[in-house]
């Protein structure tokens, strides 16, 4: 005891000197996602990107399969940073940037020293030559710049200036100078810059950081198709790489989304896609995993944009559509859009030199050699390890695998060979966006576990995170108490921003001869402001967003006791947070400020009609003054987050999630329906990679049962579940040995659904004794090896699904089949193993097992749904006869079989439907749980506080389930770590119970199922109905759908009340009259 006491202060001292910060290398979607989760858990994040802006590959893609949306509307600053689309992601948008994230662009890591928990990293920042804090995006530097260079963002299709902005919505939102020797004597950009933001003699900066852990999110490099000369890339103008096509098809691309032929700028009438360029060949043996899907997307875009008459043909080897909704996507491409798929690998492209059309020779389905002319050819290039992989691996001291990607182990898919260094995304194997997002959050969970003693070192002011300064001070912010403005008549201050002369000038004067900026009439605007009701102060500021401008606003609030503020200039989308923070620092509620978007929605877009634009500007100003007068302060409610999690399902996912949460210092209730932990892992005996999964099982079960923070409930089901994020209530029913049920009541902060999946067992063929499932085969291989070695003929059939089960790829079966087929061949090389398949889906490095199976003599036979295989008993009655239609010989072939293992569909676990109803969660068309958003939020639900892990989401490999479980744990930890400062509500819908007639319209229209008709606290509805609608502010997402639908107009959305929208915004139109004055 005495010894303990003496140790304690020493320990605490140690804790405080150890860094509570994390280095994330790579500012693509993976790095951004990981940073947000870490920052939300109260760790400081240094996000390092070697290019001038964040976003990575995803920022170059116009559309994502399978929904073709860019999903930018899915997240709001208050709701979980759901959208991680780089340029508009709320967590990264300028002025609203997460207070715990520091972005270092143009920066490289040059050295790493130390060990897990305490690294010292040396970095070098190359000069940007433009100060992002002073750049106002006027673009003058680019206009005067004489130097033109190929635009790498547009894949070299167009040119840009040396002074340029990478993309219209780059983060940081500022220009950059690609300095060339010519700049030495030019310097025009320096002269023209109105804010003096440019310094052409900026020097590189060397600095070092002390961090506890490192996450690598380096992404990938696309294959350079000019390495295969026969394809003509670089020689024939109309042969494009897939990324070039993406840019052409993107709205922000060089042609604004119209695909044209580079040779003659005409839209092509026929396009061919060649798959597996730089994948699945002799040199690069692995499968790049994403090309089948993106080629299909690109073909669909061609049909949608250029018209249905465009002929699209995809030359494909296997259709690898192995994720949720992807099979349906392929079916839609084929049936609705008429995209042709030809199973053939085209080895060479010829060009007609006059028309620049391209000639492909291939074998059609009939086996005939066909010569077809296409007007454009797109090469579906594969993914390779990032260019910086080798160098960084040397700096970091991590190992790379045989393919040059980061080396990871199957049971710890996010850990590199160096402790404390984690990896996510395509740097560990070719991956698409959704897998990258899962990995990124999962890697964040690994870091939280490692730095568990340092979580919440940088806590957020969670009521309004944007109110916090971005300087990352440990103490947070101290804001003055809020002034009570209730009942006071509006005293509005109007601040008109000239944007350094770019936006508005005094009428008739031309400031410094700039021609491109809009010149709104300031005099007119000042007059309108002065004559508007409630306005007591009008002031013109040069740049409201600069510290000088902000000080003017704050001075106005304190000296003139303003209680409302209008700032006319920038967009509220980018600058709301800045001015909200500004007024709150002076004691005003952040919702008492209104912005007038003069720059992006008036000045810049009506250059040709200055007269009418001026009147519109005055109109917009009047509307804003009216709206702000009706504004009311908005507050959030403070909640206490229950510091524990409920994990439903005790398989590998459930156990992994539980351990990650418990290791980070929170209690976990782990509920398992059967009598022991393990789930599907109990029946997994060996894996293709050669690891022993039973060791993992033992390790997980031992750690879970021994963990003092994990409470395991076996033979238990959840029978009741209610509440909201931070405060759920559940009732558990445990089956007792005597047959009775023991009920347990729980209160918990978050719930993780990890109920898993199972192999289907129903099929008429399974009635034959020789027909088994692959799972059974695996058990027989382990338990009856002699019997298996004696087999002579084995016919394996892939993609067998019971009646009524939708057609989707179960993802893991092909690799399992390879694993078992190889094992049979090892036991007995003379055994004839035939695999009947539709598509072999051994994506990523798993392609090697397919190659090994072929090398060992496993025979592969493709069948189609038009002529599926048939089974019958041989006359002798001992063996089965499998009939399969040979697509090249065009006849039925009979294969005798001693054993017929089937790859059955993987179904969601029994009881998924009931659980979904209890938790009020939706299911996907395949019957699995439906996540909040298919690409960007794969571990979240639209109901906040509940997360999804493992096979309950979709069939998955062990390593994928592990990543997914960690990802769910990371999301859960961001909430649990808020402890007593969980703020919910804010801009939410409120019901006036005296107007509610209880018609249930809101309960039907709410996309989240939140409104309820209840009676409490005297809410009785119109005419004492005995109940009125109630919208829990802790759950409401603030979309306002109910307010639009309510027939009694009983619901109002805060900050968008009728008073604010109807009377002022729209009535303003009535004043669309000759300009004032």
């Amino acid at each position, binding site marked *: 005891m005495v010894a303990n006491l003496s140790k304690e202060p020493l320990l605490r001292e140690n804790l405080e000197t150890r860094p509570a910060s994390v280095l994330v290398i790579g500012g693509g979607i993976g790095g951004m996602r990981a940073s947000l989760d870490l920052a939300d858990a109260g760790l400081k994040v240094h996000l390092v990107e070697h290019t001038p802006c964040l976003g990575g590959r995803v920022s170059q893609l116009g559309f994502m399969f399978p929904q073709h949306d860019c999903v*930018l*509307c*899915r*997240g*709001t600053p208050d709701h979980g940073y759901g*959208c991680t689309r780089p340029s*508009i992601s709320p967590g990264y948008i300028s002025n609203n940037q997460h207070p715990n994230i520091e972005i270092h662009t143009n920066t490289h890591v040059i050295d790493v020293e130390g060990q897990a928990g305490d690294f010292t990293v040396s970095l070098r920042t190359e000069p940007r030559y433009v100060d992002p804090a002073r750049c106002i*995006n006027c673009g003058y530097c680019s206009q005067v710049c004489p130097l033109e260079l190929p635009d790498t963002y547009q894949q070299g299709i167009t040119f840009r200036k040396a002074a340029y902005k990478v993309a*219209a*919505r780059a983060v940081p939102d500022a220009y950059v100078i690609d300095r060339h020797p010519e700049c030495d004597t030019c310097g025009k950009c320096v002269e023209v810059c109105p804010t003096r933001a440019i310094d052409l003699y900026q020097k590189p900066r060397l600095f070092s950081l002390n961090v506890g852990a490192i996450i690598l999110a380096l992404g990938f490099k696309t294959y350079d198709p000019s390495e295969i000369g026969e394809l003509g890339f670089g020689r024939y103008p109309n042969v494009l790489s897939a990324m070039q096509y993406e840019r052409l098809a993107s709205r922000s691309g060089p042609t604004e989304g119209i695909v044209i032929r580079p040779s003659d700028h005409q839209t092509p009438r026929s396009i061919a896609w060649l798959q597996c360029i730089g994948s699945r060949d002799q040199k690069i043996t692995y499968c790049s995993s994403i090309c089948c899907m993106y080629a299909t997307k690109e073909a669909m875009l061609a049909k949608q944009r250029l018209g249905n008459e465009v002929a699209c043909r995809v030359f494909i080897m296997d259709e690898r559509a192995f994720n949720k909704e992807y099979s349906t996507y392929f079916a839609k491409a084929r049936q609705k859009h008429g995209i042709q798929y030809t199973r053939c690998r085209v080895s060479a492209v010829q060009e007609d030199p006059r028309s620049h059309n391209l000639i492909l020779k291939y074998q059609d389905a009939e086996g005939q050699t066909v010569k077809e002319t296409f007007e454009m050819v797109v090469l579906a290039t594969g993914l390779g390890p990032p260019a910086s992989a080798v160098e960084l691996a040397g700096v970091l001291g991590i190992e790379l695998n045989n393919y040059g990607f980061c080396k990871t182990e199957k049971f710890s898919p996010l850990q590199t060979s160096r402790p404390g260094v984690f990896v996510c995304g395509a740097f560990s194997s070719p991956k698409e966006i959704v897998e990258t997002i899962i990995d990124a959050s999962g890697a964040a969970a690994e870091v939280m576990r490692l730095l568990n003693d340092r979580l919440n070192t940088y806590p957020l002011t969670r009521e309004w995170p944007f109110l916090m300064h971005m300087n990352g001070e440990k103490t947070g912010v101290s804001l003055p108490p809020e002034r009570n403005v209730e009942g006071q008549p509006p005293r509005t201050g109007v601040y008109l921003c000239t944007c350094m002369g770019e936006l508005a000038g005094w009428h008739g004067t031309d400031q410094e001869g700039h021609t*491109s900026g809009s010149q709104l009439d300031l005099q007119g605007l000042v007059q309108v402001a002065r004559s508007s009701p409630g306005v007591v102060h009008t002031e013109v500021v040069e740049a409201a967003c600069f510290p000088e401008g902000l000080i003017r606003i704050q001075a106005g609030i304190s000296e003139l006791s303003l209680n409302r503020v209008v700032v006319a200039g920038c*967009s*509220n*989308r*980018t600058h709301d947070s800045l001015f909200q923070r500004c007024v709150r620092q002076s004691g005003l509620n952040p919702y008492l400020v209104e912005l007038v*978007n003069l*720059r*992006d*929605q*008036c*000045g*810049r*877009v*009506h*250059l*040709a*009609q200055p007269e*009418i*634009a001026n*009147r*519109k500007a005055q*109109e*917009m100003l009047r509307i804003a003054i009216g709206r702000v007068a009706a504004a009311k302060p908005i507050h959030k409610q403070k909640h206490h987050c229950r510091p524990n999690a409920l994990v439903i399902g005790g398989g590998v996912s459930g156990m992994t999630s539980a351990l990650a949460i418990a290791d980070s210092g929170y209690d976990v209730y782990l509920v398992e329906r059967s009598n022991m932990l393990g789930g599907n892992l109990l029946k997994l005996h060996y894996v293709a990679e050669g690891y022993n999964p039973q060791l993992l099982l033992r390790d997980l079960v031992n750690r879970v049962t021994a963990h003092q923070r994990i409470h395991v409930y076996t033979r238990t089901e959840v029978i009741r579940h209610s509440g909201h994020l931070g405060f759920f209530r559940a009732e558990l029913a445990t089956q007792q040995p005597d047959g009775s049920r023991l009920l347990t009541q729980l209160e918990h902060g978050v719930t993780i659904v990890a109920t898993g999946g199972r192999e289907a067992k129903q099929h008429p063929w399974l009635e034959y004794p020789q027909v088994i499932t692959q799972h059974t085969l695996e058990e027989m291989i382990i338990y009856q090896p002699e019997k298996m070695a004696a087999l002579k003929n084995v016919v394996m059939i892939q993609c067998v699904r019971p009646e009524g089960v939708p057609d989707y790829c179960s993802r893991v079966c092909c690799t399992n089949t390879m694993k078992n087929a190889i094992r049979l061949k090892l036991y007995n090389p003379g055994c004839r193993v035939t695999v009947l398949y539709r598509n072999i889906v051994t994506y990523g490095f798993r392609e090697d097992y397919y190659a090994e199976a072929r090398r060992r003599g496993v025979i592969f036979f493709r069948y189609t749904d038009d002529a599926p295989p048939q089974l019958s008993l041989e006359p002798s009655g001992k063996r089965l006869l499998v009939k399969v239609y040979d697509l090249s010989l065009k006849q039925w072939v009979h294969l005798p079989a001693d054993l017929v293992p089937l790859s059955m569909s993987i179904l969601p676990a029994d009881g998924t439907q009931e659980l979904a109803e209890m938790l009020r969660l939706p299911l996907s068309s395949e019957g699995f749980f439906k996540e909040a958003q298919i690409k960007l939020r794969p571990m979240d639900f639209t109901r906040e506080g509940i997360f999804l892990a493992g096979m309950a989401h979709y069939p998955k490999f062990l390593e994928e389930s592990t990543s997914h479980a960690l990802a769910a744990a990371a999301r859960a930890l961001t909430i649990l770590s808020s402890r007593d400062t969980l703020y919910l509500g804010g*801009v939410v819908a409120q019901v006036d119970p005296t107007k509610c007639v209880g018609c249930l319209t809101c309960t039907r*229209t709410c*996309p989240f199922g939140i409104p309820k008709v209840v009676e409490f606290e005297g809410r009785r509805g119109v005419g004492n109905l005995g109940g009125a609608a109630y919208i829990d502010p802790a759950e409401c997402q*603030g*979309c*306002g*759908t109910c*307010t*639009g*639908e309510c027939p009694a*107009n009983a619901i109002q*959305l805060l*900050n*968008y009340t009728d008073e604010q*929208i*109807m009377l002022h*915004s*729209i*009535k303003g*139109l*009535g004043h*669309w*009259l*000759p300009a004032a004055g």
Partner: protein
Amino acid sequence: MDQQVTRNREANQVWQQQIVCYACEHCAYAAADLAGTLRMQYPPSIKIVQLPCSGKLDVLMVLHAFEQGADGVMVAG
């Protein structure tokens, strides 16, 4: 109302129709901002009203816009 419209026309010399656009703040409103960044030109007679979601739109809001002299209403989201 008619009087208002007539005055409107006189003021503009060339009559321009008044369009009220209700825009979801996450997508359409952001797209309008992007148009600004790219300096894409469109007639000033389009007025954009920001909504938190196009689901917020109320039939009354559309009618109200017409009542106040709008010639057309556009919902983008």
